[in-house]
């Protein structure tokens, strides 16, 4: 069984513009999914990233510059990530397809972790 990371980007104002009812409905979808995947042993864990803040640290020809995240201008911010268990990319994609992010017309980036150095 391999591990895959699902990265979940969303528009910066995706959740702030929702009313209370809509937000709750969305939560029910997402939480239901995570519980179902946990029950199936597919869900390993995840972290939600804070919407506010964020820094970009860059080395510009020898001097390190730190900038506040340019998240206001970008089309999407990374909302968080999850780690799932899957046999291969086919299964990982299948799992991503079932994610509520799909139902709500969002994008998921699926990447396999490199476990070659693991025991």
């Amino acid at each position, binding site marked *: 069984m391999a591990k895959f990371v699902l990265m979940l980007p969303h528009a910066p104002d995706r*959740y702030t513009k929702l009313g209370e009812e809509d937000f709750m409905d969305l*939560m029910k979808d997402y*939480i239901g999914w*995570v519980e179902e995947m946990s029950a199936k042993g597919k869900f390993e864990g995840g972290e*939600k990233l804070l919407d506010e803040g964020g820094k970009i640290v860059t080395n510009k020809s020898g001097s390190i510059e730190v900038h506040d995240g340019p998240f206001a201008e970008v089309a999407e911010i990374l909302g968080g990530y999850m780690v799932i268990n899957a046999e291969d990319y086919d299964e990982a994609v299948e799992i991503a397809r079932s994610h509520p992010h799909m139902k709500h017309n969002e994008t998921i980036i699926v990447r396999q972790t490199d476990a070659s150095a693991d025991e």
Partner: protein
Amino acid sequence: MSVAGDIHKLLDETVRRERGWLISSLVSKFGPGKVELAEDVAQDAIVKALATWPYKGVPDNPRAWLRRVAGNAALDRVRRSAREFGVDDDWDFATEEHDVITPSLSDPELDLMVLCCDPAIEPRDQLFLALKTVCGFTAAETAALFFMTEDALFQRLARAKRKLKAQSGNLARFPTRFALKARLPQLLKVIYLMFAWGFLPRRGEDLVREDICREALRLSDGLFAATEGKAAGHHALHALLLFQMSRLPARVSGEGRLITLEDQDRTRWDKEMIFDGVQHLGAAKSSNDLTRYHLEAGIASLHAQAPIWEETDWASISRLYELLNARTPSLPVLVNWAVSLMLQGDLEGAGQRLLAAGDQAGAQKLPAYHLARAKLADLTEDRASARAAREQAKACQVSAPVAEFIERELGFGE
């Protein structure tokens, strides 16, 4: 089982209750003119807290978790802009954070229950008092629950109230959570008794008082929020209530008649409750103390998990009754043990236990005892004894539908 259904219910109920709690706590701080502000703060805090669940899953004790995390989020916001909220900068919510887990902020009924279980009052009288005041039982119901006369009950209640008055005169506030902790076993007992009555009332027109069952369940739930589930046996008791409760939809026919376990349509059992019960029973296993609730919940779970009556694991059930009888011997336990033996064909063992039960005070007043004897007589085709036993059961104090059920059984014997 639908995970989605569970999640919907869990979120709706948890959020509704915790929002109410958070708002009322904040209003009591900000003042009655700031209800809207309190609502805003509470809502923001809850949204912020909930937003992590899609990445983490639901915490083990969602209500306590939400209360803590949303409570802290609200506190943060208030601290950051104390002026906006019309409170002083030195407004001290921090010292009261401890109160987040005392019942006095969450539930007036629990408060009163804790008060009633004052150790200065005799343990049995604490139960009378709590059932009578908190649970809204009538004197007749309370008396019937304990096989007492109403007069005797009134005397004991009067004495208990005098003691309570003397005690609470010294109290500046509700009992602390340390007091609560010491009183937990009694609180569990109150909830257990309350539920037992709701599940099988001994008088009245109703076969089941579902509202009482639900209220017991709610109080037990409330107690979780207050204690974070630390009371020995609490998870087990809660599992027991859930397993019992799950059968209610199948236990009463459309005409309000009793349908016994054997004849129940098990597809009508509440799967979500069974699911929750299994969760709580799992949590109960982490406790070091084995309580009677563990054993009773174990029995109930075996029933809940049998797909059909014929596949009931009677051997395990009677083993649990045996343990229960060794731990907290009582007449109903002995009778139920006998029945479980009977149902796996050990008529001799069953007969012995019923004889022993018959020697105990109160056996003649317990319909289950007579019905068990009737069942044993059925199995040995002793029609006369079966009929006599059912007549005796009918003469006991039972609700109208139970009387009707016994009547029907008598009819079948014709």
